[in-house]
């Protein structure tokens, strides 16, 4: 059993296996399940992710009308222009946002690690797929690697906005995606950890300030930020760039920052963007003036 990222990497190197394999073996051992059943459950999650992305391209809309349709706009733009940020990056953004548009519209998604941050991992996976051409097995392994890193964060810090701000949600999700991209692209376990650390570092201090308390604004677009950082950080790590602060220490920093964050900035819908004139206007429009 691993508790920290350094233990995870040590274990992978010692046994000369990938991080995804460590996660699969741990699940089999702790839950006394067969390899087939563990893989099958993850494959079902992969299918849910794929279906959510498909659904988003039909153009979904939330009940409030605050979100929906942006994934389609981005895909149309990509068909008619060469995106400045690059095709893979923007494709990842559209799929990450699309997943979260489906979530906001109360469609079926796979929480990764949470519902509000469910776009980053599938967004990254289904965009890099077009360049890396993974097998189905490698796509499933992508989710186990992402899960292994998320497992460390959840047990040493937090993964909910109410507990630790959005750095705990989209921050963790983007960082999990970065680590998984590195493995799929042929990087080492150490490079996965570097990519994770570099993504999370750029998300430290990110507040959770949902307008009207809803998982819509700014959440959908924050998944765009999370997945972008994931891809950039994966490239940095594959290029050999290292995080000066070790991965586990970045997770520790995230935890302490979250603990000192005021409650108004932890998913109460009372601070940050929620407490702007437009944020308050939207809240009153949706729920009536309660003040």
């Amino acid at each position, binding site marked *: 059993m691993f508790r920290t990222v350094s233990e995870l990497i040590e274990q992978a190197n010692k046994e000369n296996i990938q991080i995804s394999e460590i996660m699969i073996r741990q699940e089999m051992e702790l839950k006394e399940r067969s390899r087939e059943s563990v893989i099958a459950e993850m494959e079902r999650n992969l299918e849910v992710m794929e279906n959510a992305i498909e659904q988003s391209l039909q153009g979904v809309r939330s009940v409030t009308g605050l979100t929906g349709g942006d994934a389609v706009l981005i895909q149309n733009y990509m068909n008619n222009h060469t995106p400045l940020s690059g095709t893979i990056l923007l494709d990842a953004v559209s799929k990450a946002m699309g997943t979260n548009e489906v979530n906001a519209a109360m469609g079926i998604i*796979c929480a990764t690690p949470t519902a*509000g941050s469910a776009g980053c991992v599938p967004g990254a996976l289904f965009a890099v797929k077009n360049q890396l051409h993974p097998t189905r097995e490698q796509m499933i392994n992508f989710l186990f690697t992402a899960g292994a890193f998320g497992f460390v964060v*959840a047990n040493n810090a937090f993964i*909910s906005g109410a507990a630790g701000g959005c750095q705990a949600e989209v921050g963790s999700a983007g960082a999990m995606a970065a680590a998984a991209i590195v493995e799929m692209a042929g990087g080492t376990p150490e490079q996965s950890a570097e990519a994770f650390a570099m993504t999370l570092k750029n998300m430290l201090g990110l507040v959770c300030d949902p307008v009207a308390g809803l998982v*819509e604004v700014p959440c959908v677009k924050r998944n765009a930020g999370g997945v972008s950082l994931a891809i950039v950080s994966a490239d940095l790590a594959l290029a050999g760039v290292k995080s000066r602060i070790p991965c586990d220490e970045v997770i520790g920093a995230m935890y302490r920052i979250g603990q000192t964050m005021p409650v108004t900035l932890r998913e109460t819908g009372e601070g940050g963007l929620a407490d702007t004139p437009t944020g308050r206007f939207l809240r009153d429009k949706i729920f009536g003036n309660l003040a």
Partner: protein
Amino acid sequence: MKFTSVFDIIGPVMVGPSSSHTAGAGRIGKAARNFLGAEPTWAKIHLYGSFAKTYKGHGTDFALVGGLLGFETDDTRMSKALEIAKDKNIDIQFIEDTAATEHPNTARIIVGNDKDEIEVIGISIGGGKIEIIELNGFSLRLSGDHPALLIMHNDRFGAIATVTSILAKHKINIGHMEVNRKDKGEEALMVIEMDQNVDEALLQELRETDHIVKITKLES
């Protein structure tokens, strides 16, 4: 460790929009239903912290009720749970509570029918994962991940030994156990998490022993 499975992180598959506020809330509701052991006819639901501030937008209200109706997190009827409860004449009240709580996503559910009534406090700790931290005034820590027995008993010597020896005789391994009492010699609660579900014969044997008041079985 609070999280023990990769599927706590990659999962659950759920109806949006919030894993803490919808999926977690649904699971707290479902736990309350399991403790009651039947469909409730009424429920008073106190919401605290982020739950109290944002429950309408997040669908925490319908998710809690969906759980009380026995729905899983990916049940597409979830968003219609309030209407379904109304059609079944289940009386539901929501109370936005301002009391300070240890965790920002806390719900206290008092739920019952004409025979019975229970009170459960649950917290939603992220990614759809929950903990039940109080049952009928007794503190406990229950994840709902494992089959469990909750045994109300009188605080007398031998009561615990009798229960554990019956479990041992049936070759049931105890994964985690907590014992809690209101006061010396008063009502007490044993919470036993096991590796497997137990059958009716074993429950009957437990019921026939001295000092046992009530047994609730939670399957997983």
